[in-house]
């Protein structure tokens, strides 16, 4: 069985002024609901560890009740950084295998979680090929410093799954060596653990701007392009 760590603590100033982005509505309902409902439909997930921004515990608990989420939820206050949040959430996970997702990706489906769960390898992330060219640069001088092979790069997505021990060890090492990572697949890999990837869906976007909110709403409406 798996514990799902649902990252939900960040304050998204880019999307909605005045309230955390996980409470903005996408297609008529709070963005976090999509991840909760998708996870609730996966029998292998028997615990959701959910973090919340300060002052929003009751709001989150009301949503979990209103949407009748059946999977037991453990609530953890959000940390000041992603590393702190994960460090606070990991000890609350009662399973040896954990999934990580973030509520800012509302287009996740139960199938995405199931795809990870059914993969026999321990540490696996959804990732996407990069269909465009990216370049390494020196931002201070606005100079291009070389080239990157597109085939050897991937757009890192969530959800991801890890051995709890590997993830804990990676975060311990990051803390000791003052490493800062914005997601966990590369952190776990860089700290010496094998991490694999499988192709995700290009619709599984992260909602970070008002344009993303509109795009997510459009994608959630489904195919409606009948002639």
């Amino acid at each position: 069985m798996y514990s799902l760590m649902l990252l939900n603590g960040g304050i998204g100033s880019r999307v909605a002024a005045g309230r955390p982005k996980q409470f903005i509505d996408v297609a008529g309902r709070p963005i976090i609901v999509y991840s909760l409902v998708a996870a609730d439909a996966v029998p292998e997930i028997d615990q959701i560890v959910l973090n919340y921004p300060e002052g929003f515990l009751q709001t989150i608990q009301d949503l979990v009740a209103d949407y009748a989420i059946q999977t037991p939820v453990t609530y953890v206050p959000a940390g000041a950084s992603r590393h702190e949040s994960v460090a606070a959430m990991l000890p609350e996970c009662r399973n040896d295998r954990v999934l990580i997702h973030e509520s800012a990706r509302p287009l996740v489906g139960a199938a995405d979680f199931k795809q990870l769960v059914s993969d026999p390898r321990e540490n696996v992330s959804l990732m996407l090929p990069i269909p465009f060219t990216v370049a390494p640069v020196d931002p201070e001088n606005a100079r291009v410093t070389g080239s990157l092979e597109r085939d050897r790069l991937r757009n890192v997505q969530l959800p991801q799954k890890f051995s709890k021990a590997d993830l804990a060890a990676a975060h311990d090492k990051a803390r000791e060596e003052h490493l800062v990572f914005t997601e966990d697949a590369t952190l776990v890999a860089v700290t010496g653990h094998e991490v694999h990837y499988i192709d995700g869906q290009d619709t599984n976007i992260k909602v970070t701007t008002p344009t993303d909110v509109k795009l997510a709403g459009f994608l959630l409406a489904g195919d409606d392009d009948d002639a």
Partner: protein
Amino acid sequence: MPKSMLITGASKGIGAATAERFFYADNDVTDFILLARESEEFEKLIARLGGDNPHGKKVYPHFIDLNDRARIVGLMHDVMNEAGKVDYLVNNAGYTAPSALQQIDFIDFERTIGVNLYAPFTIVQELLHCGNTFELIVNIASTAGMGGRPGWLTYGASKAAVINMSEAMKDELSIYGTRVVCISPGRCATDLRRTLAPDEDPTTIMQPEHVASVIDMLASDVGHLVDSQNLVVRQ
């Protein structure tokens, strides 16, 4: 897997015809939660189903006035306790007291909205709060909800709201894989129709069994191919 079906307004008309069609068929619908006000017709239906039950199905009848929202809320918890789940929901119960605008008794208007709109909403919301995931919800509206008609202001307005509510419900419940279909019957030989058109010969118009056969189709494999926000059914 055995399925359960909740039908409101089950004592007669489209509700009773739907209950009997699914009850007597050799299908996977095994549990029937039937809601209606206490009446001789309802008693007879319950006795009929109890006395002639070829497939050993279960019937859970409940006497309720669907204008009593507090009772609906309590009853949905009882329904979950006795049947465990509701796969198919047919929101059929309807009320009307046709009258010209100047003569409408506001209590009748409130009752019309209470039974026709608030009741189906409350049933769906409470069952969702209980953790129920529907497979199919059929909301019975009316062609009277698609355009205003003199004398039918309250009824038409309530059914227009049901059509609109069904559209929102369809989109919102898609995250659970629930199908929501709104049916708008045209002239159908029910008691409610008799109230609206007392001089009409009911044998000349669509029968409740015809609408029940459409609901049967919606619950079948073919029904999964029907993507409609308002399905007009008329003869």
